[in-house]
């Protein structure tokens, strides 16, 4: 009876994962989808704790340890998730992903130690009479299969764990980009060695020392896998590592013949992979390109060779005037807005302009900021009306009829080199065509390059002028000036 209820719990869990994920891809139903999946997860977990019976028919014990662990993890997880700043969201996703990967890794370690090594020795080193082969061939293939699954969970879980922690560090700013010559060859060799040792153990005898060697090498590989990739590409890497952890979870599902782990794991593995490719498409770069960390080499070339050119600065009063008397203003937010935490000041400026009869909209580039949707989340936090945010394609149609474009801390997403310079690292990426507008005002802290590390021709164009300063202060000053008009 209990096993039947447990089966039902797992069925419910699996279905809620599918439905929840589907709902998460529609803006109207996304929040409820999250809740649906969470409910199913809870049912599956509680069912496991109270109803699980192993092959021998005995229930789970050590309830103290189990609930203790859940309690500790629950408290820390909730606090961390609730307290973190909105701008630190991608890091948190990476961190929690790493936790999942580590969990899968630990499960593999424990299960490897559980394997009956004596039985292994007997099976793989004794010359077995063909008469008995039939009886134990199932055992042999099952054990070898189990071994392969354990290794898969170990390798994938470890790479995902350490890779996610490195990604977390990069987004934090704690870890810098690092690469050395021939790194890609080194990585490939490392991977081959790891798979080689694992294969050797599957064909021969499992060995504790070699097992921990694989663990160590996988962790090393994970580090060097993520280390050379630029911070701007982190969301793509995190999405990829996300699907890795999904596959590691599915390995756990195979180990325990657990359908809900298998469902959740493969679902995330497949969906995560597709999502990664969609993110790459939005940047118009291939996944291969991202993983090779191409920003490392080519940025030196174009940046060094370019002339500075001359740019104009605009005075605060002039900027205030031209915006206050405009018919239509488009604001282009970027990472600089998030860093300065200027979203509220931005909304105040928008409201002031709207009071004066100016049509104000926000042009949101898909990869503005540190993650897709970053700007939307930032502006929503400042209570900006959802309808004022328009997507890139629509914005590009409206720029010719726009009087003033105010760029707040955005750089690469408005860089014309993406259209004109084939040697540029961002070439081919769709951008916001702000140069079609009548006037462009760019707010930055200084002339330093943005994340791609390249110069931006937009700043030197005829209709562009620069307004230097911290975004929050500049916006507040603009507001004061407009009120004086």
């Amino acid at each position, binding site marked *: 009876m209990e096993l039947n209820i447990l089966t039902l719990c797992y069925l419910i869990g699996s279905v809620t994962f599918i439905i929840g994920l589907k709902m998460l891809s529609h803006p109207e139903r996304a929040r409820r989808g999250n809740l649906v999946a969470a409910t199913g997860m809870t049912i599956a977990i509680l069912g496991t704790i109270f109803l699980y019976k192993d092959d021998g028919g005995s229930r789970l014990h050590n309830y103290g340890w189990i609930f203790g662990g859940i309690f500790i993890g629950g408290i820390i997880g909730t606090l961390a998730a609730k307290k973190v700043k909105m701008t630190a*969201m991608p890091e948190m996703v990476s961190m929690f992903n790493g936790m999942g990967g580590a969990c899968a890794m630990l499960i593999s370690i424990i299960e490897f130690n559980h394997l009956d090594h004596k039985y292994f020795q007997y099976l793989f080193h004794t010359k077995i009479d063909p008469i008995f082969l039939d009886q134990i061939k199932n055992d042999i293939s099952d054990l070898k299969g189990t071994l392969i699954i354990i290794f898969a969970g170990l390798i994938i879980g470890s790479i995902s764990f350490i890779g996610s922690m490195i990604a977390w560090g990069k987004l934090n700013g704690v870890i810098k980009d690092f690469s050395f010559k021939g790194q890609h060859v080194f990585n490939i060799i490392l991977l081959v060695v790891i798979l080689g040792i694992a294969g050797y153990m599957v064909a021969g005898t499992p060995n504790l020392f070699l097992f921990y060697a694989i663990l160590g090498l996988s962790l090393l590989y994970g580090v060097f896998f993520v280390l050379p990739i630029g911070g701007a590409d982190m969301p793509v890497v995190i999405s990829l590592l996300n699907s890795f952890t999904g596959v590691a979870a599915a390995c*756990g599902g195979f180990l325990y013949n657990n359908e809900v782990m298998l469902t959740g794991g493969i679902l995330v593995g497949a969906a995560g992979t597709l999502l990664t490719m969609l993110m790459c498409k939005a940047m118009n770069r291939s996944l291969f390109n991202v993983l090779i960390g191409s920003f490392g080499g080519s940025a030196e070339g174009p940046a060094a060779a370019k002339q500075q050119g001359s740019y104009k600065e605009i005075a605060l009063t002039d900027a205030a005037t031209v915006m206050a008397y405009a018919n239509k203003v488009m604001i282009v937010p970027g990472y600089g807005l998030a860093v300065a935490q200027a979203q509220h000041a931005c909304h105040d400026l928008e409201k002031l302009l709207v009071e004066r009869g100016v049509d104000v909209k926000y042009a949101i580039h898909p990869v503005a900021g540190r993650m897709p949707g970053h700007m939307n989340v930032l502006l929503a936090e400042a209570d900006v009306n959802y309808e004022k945010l328009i997507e890139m394609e629509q914005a590009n149609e409206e720029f010719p009829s726009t009087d003033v474009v105010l760029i707040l801390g955005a750089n690469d997403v408005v860089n014309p080199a993406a259209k004109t310079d084939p040697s540029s690292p961002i070439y081919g990426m769709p951008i916001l065509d702000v140069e079609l507008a009548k006037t462009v005002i760019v707010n930055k802290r200084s002339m330093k390059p943005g994340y791609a590390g390249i110069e931006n021709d937009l700043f030197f164009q005829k209709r562009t002028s620069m307004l230097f300063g911290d975004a929050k202060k500049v916006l507040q000053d603009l507001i004061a000036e407009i009120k004086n008009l």
Partner: protein
Amino acid sequence: MFIEYYTMNSILNWITIHQEMIYIVILMIFIGIEVIGRVPSVLHTPLMSGANAIHGVVIIGAIIVMGKAETDNYLALILGFLAVILGTLNVVGGFVVTDRMLEMFKKKRK
């Protein structure tokens, strides 16, 4: 000759024993790809976060390991305990972060 037959047989055996699981894997791959279908780029990050929470289902494996550990098996107890904590962090943290991201979107819908 014997090795080839033995290996081929082992693989086919394994597939047969686990056929239902294999069906689940294949079907879930198609479903996973299908449900992501048309996602607006603005939802990429919350979706990634939601998927992140869902793969926290790996905690069930940790619970099973912990639940079956004998009192003298320190490795299983300690590592298992750690695994349960990490799995819970993935699940709870994942769903809460996703909810926070989505809460920001919904405020303006009147």
